[in-house]
């Protein structure tokens, strides 16, 4: 018995010795982890530099994509420099140049590491926006396939794409601008398979509302304008169908879904009030109805009660402040005068080329101090849509708005 135990023990030890010395195990990779990491970074860097016309960068700032998407063109040069164009730049012949790098940080990370006014636009903080507009400038590179590089914003986690350009940047950006302007000239209406879907648009985000199984549903889709139309940030399901990419058909004023059956109709209003500052002067008797005067009077009294201030008789509408990008209605309160603003959208009404719809968007500049003026905003919004009469369609100076539902509500806007 003892002998057998010894034999087994020897056998075991010997087999251990023999097996442990097998140095012929194959390595999974030919290179070490460090070498592979360096190789990956070099490859991505070479790929970035390989695009002679640069890359289209479909950029979505902020983790909920609340500003929608913006197009950049980035061209990676020798000596770590990068040339940046943006659809927001006023002059495409003046790109901004700065530095970039591809570094290793839990994976290959593309970083724009010296200041570039265009590339860091959404990331630059201020007193009012201490977290800026939540823009990324460091991106984890996920993949590079068929001239499309997929990256992920380090701060936002947003998935974004760099697409190799095959035409000159100025040509491409002017095409995009054409589409942006065309899409931006109206308000929207939509249908899925013939079923009506209502649409609100703000900051490159669509909000679609519709009924499904007697339930009112609402879905928000951040979008970016593309060469052919527009694309949602990610696929969105409406009435059982999934949508992401749309083709702009200028002839029919429609954005038509590439997959499924959805049409977003661009409704052109009879006048684009946002192109100028218009004034409604309550003190001019012939410029407003009694119902409008009553609404203003209520706002005047509320303002007197709240602050002991006098509400100005004129109200700015349309582009109320170009400096602050405020569109909607601005009120002035004396002494000061203090301006307070409510963001409002002016849109068309499908099937009625002379109708103007007015929709509330959000509280604006100083509004938190002047919420008591809502009575006047509500009067204007609640009586929409309006029939529009324009003095001269070529060069409008005087516009009369009369409520479709209540002809007692009318007012005249003057430039």
């Amino acid at each position: 018995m003892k002998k057998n135990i010894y034999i087994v023990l020897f056998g075991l030890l010997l087999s251990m010795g023999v097996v442990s010395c097998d140095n012929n195990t194959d390595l999974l990779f030919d290179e070490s982890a460090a070498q592979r990491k360096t190789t990956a970074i070099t490859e991505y860097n070479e790929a970035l530099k390989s695009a002679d016309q640069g890359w289209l960068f479909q950029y979505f700032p902020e983790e909920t994509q609340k500003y929608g998407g913006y197009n950049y063109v980035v061209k990676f040069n020798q000596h770590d420099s990068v040339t940046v164009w943006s659809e927001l730049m006023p002059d495409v012949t003046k790109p901004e140049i700065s530095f970039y790098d591809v570094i290793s940080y839990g994976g290959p990370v593309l970083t724009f590491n010296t200041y570039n006014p265009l590339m860091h636009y959404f990331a630059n903080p201020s007193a009012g926006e201490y977290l800026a507009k939540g823009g990324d400038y460091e991106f984890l590179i996920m993949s590079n396939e068929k001239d499309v590089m997929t990256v992920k914003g380090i701060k936002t986690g947003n998935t974004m794409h760099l697409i190799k350009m095959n035409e000159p940047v100025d040509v491409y950006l002017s095409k995009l601008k054409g589409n942006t302007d065309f899409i931006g000239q109206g308000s929207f209406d939509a249908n899925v398979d013939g079923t009506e879907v209502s649409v609100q648009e703000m900051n490159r985000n669509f909000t679609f509302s519709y009924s499904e199984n007697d339930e009112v549903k609402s879905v928000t889709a951040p979008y970016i304008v593309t060469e052919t139309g527009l694309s949602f940030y990610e696929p969105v399901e409406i009435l059982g169908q999934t949508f992401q990419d749309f083709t702009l058909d200028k002839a029919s004023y429609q954005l038509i879904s590439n997959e499924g059956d959805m049409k977003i109709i661009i409704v052109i209003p009879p006048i684009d009030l946002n192109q100028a500052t218009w004034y409604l002067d309550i003190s001019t008797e012939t410029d407003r109805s009694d119902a409008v005067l009553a609404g203003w009077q209520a706002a005047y009294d509320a303002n007197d009660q709240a602050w002991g201030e006098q509400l100005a008789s004129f109200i700015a509408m349309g582009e109320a402040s170009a400096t602050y990008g405020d569109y909607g209605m601005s009120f002035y309160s004396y002494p000061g005068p203090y301006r307070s603003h409510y963001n409002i959208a002016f849109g068309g009404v499908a099937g009625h080329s002379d109708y103007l719809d007015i929709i509330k968007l959000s509280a604006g500049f100083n509004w938190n101090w002047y919420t008591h003026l809502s009575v006047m905003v509500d009067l204007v919004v609640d009586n929409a849509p309006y029939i529009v009469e324009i003095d001269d369609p070529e060069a409008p100076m005087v516009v009369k708005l009369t409520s479709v539902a209540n002809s007692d509500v009318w007012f005249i806007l003057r430039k």
Partner: protein
Amino acid sequence: MNKIKYWLFVMVMVFVLSACSEDDEPNPDESVISVEAAEKNDFDRYLEKTFVDTYNISFQYKLQDIESDMNYALVPASYENSIKMANLIKYLCLDAYEEVAPEGFLKKYFPKMFMMVGSAGWHNNGTYTLGTAEGGLKITLYLINDLDVTDVQTLYSHYFRTIFHEFSHILHQTKDYTTDFDKISVTDYVGDSWNDAWDGQSSLARGFISDYSSKEANEDFVELIAHYITNTPESWDAKIEPAGDTGKAILAQKMAIIKSYLKEVWNIDIDALRNAIQTRAEKLGEQDLDNITIE
């Protein structure tokens, strides 16, 4: 028989234990840590020569935001303003110390790393951080994209007082000053409530050159140095005038200790240092701050 078994056992054990020793040596020629060497540009070469070789200071102008606090939104500094700031630090600070300090002083004691940030470090209450220092080694300067080289007072308040402040911390942490200094305002230090302890009152009248000075003796000590050398004799007198006789007497007592400390411990005449900085500040307009030619 048992002996044979014993020897056999030992031999097998030796075989087993020694079997795997052959190829497991790491290769000393191959590092497992790879550092991707970014391509060096003219500014990098200038920094290498002016800051690294001369003073062993690393000047970082390319921001790695991924390593910073994600609760802040920061943007990188512009390349052009980083060049200006590097030259300003050299001209207004390093060269000024060089004029009055002993040989090798800066290389040995000056903070080892500068980090440039383009924006301010904004907080959610509308205030912002101007500069931070980590362990006296790394100084981060913010607002580099707003740099205005024609405004000396803002240069002092936004950037240079931070640098002089942090550098002075390194000095007293290396060789401490006399405890006599601590005793002067011992009952007036307010600790972390320095920011709101002086509402409507003057910290200056209690012998503090800034509200932050009243935090504790060490901060008081370095704030005095930073403010003293960023003022001309005239502007210093004007600055401390509102302190009144009591405040001025306290400040004079503290300054006397600082002067003798710097002289005796570091062989630096603070008035000569102030003079060097102020003379340089006067001639700032004549400097080419965009120059990155290696001499």
